């Protein structure tokens, strides 16, 4: 059984149908990439999974439980974290306060302190800037904070929305290295990226979205060599 199973999902913005019946699954331990152009429905899909949007029909099953209608705030404690597009760190709070909020659903203070240390170990720059107001961090640092904050909930699966967007090439490489690390440490990853080349390089499998539908899916290596993908997304 897949860890996360999305079936015949349809999502509307008012009258406009953004997701037109997509199905996909994520198995435990995998890195899955959802690729596609702007407006294909990638972000909408993630928002619907974590309850920021409501599905019109279809189902989302996480570890055997139907979470289609579960209020979003309850999904976090089930073991799912979401690093939103544009990072959305709490700009007026400090790095440390942001990380603490990431652990909002957890109770044990000693374990939370340990998790913060782990985040600092993984992201040295956040430790240096622990008391700095998050809004004053650079884009790359904010992305690290958003990822660290998501890790603070001890997720089994982490959903990442365009983590490399707007970052300098140096940071992009670093962010992808970190995603790899997160995956290797046992967390399942569902990744949305416009940078299809990088995404396919670290993914196990991928789904290609076009205007609300999945048009192609398969192993990442296989897709990387697919002629239509090369043309449309890899710029070759």
């Amino acid at each position: 059984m897949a860890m996360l199973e999305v079936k015949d999902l349809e999502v509307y913005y008012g009258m406009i149908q953004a997701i037109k019946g997509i199905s996909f699954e994520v198995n435990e331990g995998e890195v899955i990439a959802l690729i596609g152009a702007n407006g294909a429905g990638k972000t909408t899909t993630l928002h619907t999974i974590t309850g920021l949007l409501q599905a019109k029909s279809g189902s989302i099953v996480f570890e055997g439980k139907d979470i289609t209608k579960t209020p979003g705030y309850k999904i976090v404690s089930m073991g799912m974290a979401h690093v939103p597009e544009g990072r959305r760190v709490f700009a007026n709070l400090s790095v440390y306060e942001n990380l603490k909020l990431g652990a909002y659903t957890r109770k044990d203070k000693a374990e939370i302190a340990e998790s913060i240390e782990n985040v600092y170990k993984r992201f040295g720059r956040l430790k240096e800037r622990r008391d700095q107001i998050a809004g004053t961090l650079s884009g790359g640092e904010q992305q690290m904070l958003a990822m660290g904050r998501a890790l603070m909930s001890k997720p089994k699966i982490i959903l990442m929305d365009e983590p490399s967007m707007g970052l300098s090439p140096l940071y992009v490489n670093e962010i992808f290295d970190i995603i790899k690390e997160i995956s290797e440490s046992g967390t399942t990853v569902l990744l949305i990226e416009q940078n299809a080349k990088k995404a396919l390089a670290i993914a196990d499998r991928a789904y290609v979205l076009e205007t609300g539908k999945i048009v192609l899916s398969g192993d990442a290596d296989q897709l990387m060599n697919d002629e239509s993908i090369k043309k449309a997304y890899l710029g070759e």
Partner: protein
Amino acid sequence: MVDVMSFVSYLLNGISLGSVYAIIALGYTMVYGIAKMLNFAHGDVIMVGGYIVFVFVSTLGLPPLLGIFVAMILCTVLGVTIERVAYRPLRMASSPLAVLITAIGVSYLLQNLALLIFGANTKSFTSVVAIPPLKLADGQLTISGETMVTILVGIIVMVCLTLFVNKTKAGQAMLAVSEDKGAAQLMGINVNGTIALTFAIGSALAAVAGVLLCSAYPSLTPYTGAMPGIKAFVAAVFGGIGSIPGAMIGGILLGVIEIFGKAYISSQMADAIVFGVLIVVLLVKPTGILGRNIQEKV
């Protein structure tokens, strides 16, 4: 010497009145910060608090502290109910004006309910403060018990609220929701619950403010809350709407300005001066004294 004494006395009265404004303004500013709405019914919750204490203490003879406690509980229930019934269904409405107009409607509803139940006659409110006035400097300076208690309560409220927001999990959740509801939800924060909690705290504070206000100015009518409510709103804007320390500073400054205006310029002009100050502040610094510029999201 006498002039210095009266100056000190005006200053203390100003700080005392300002503390009441600050306590009300905190409710305004917290609700604005988190729900991005102006709760114009907030002032009328003060009036309800006043009437509850009037009924329980002046009429039924309950001990004042117990009466205040009852008023805080009932006002909390009232505030949360208003939010749940009148505001929450409109939170997703396409126009933010809808909830603003609803708030004005709730304000009139509360005023008219009070009119229906208690009538239009002014009720004389018995002060809940039993402390005798303090006479200093050979009787040249008299500080009333109400003034002392109000300032003290103001300080306690401000300290407790600051600690609550900065040191507790619920307080941090409030800050998170006020910044970004979606991101807060992704942390596992119950956004609706947090907004309800904010209304609860604001309404409990309004009850406290109502009791303090009616103890210092002991006449109670269904419109008692309206003017202090508007002035506290001015104080909140003055200090920077959405900012908790801003509401405190704005409230106290406004109280001091009002009392000094009454004492040294003209008692008829005092309100005009208060609102004039608001206009000047908004012209010079549109975000208020401690207002932050809204951060652009990348």
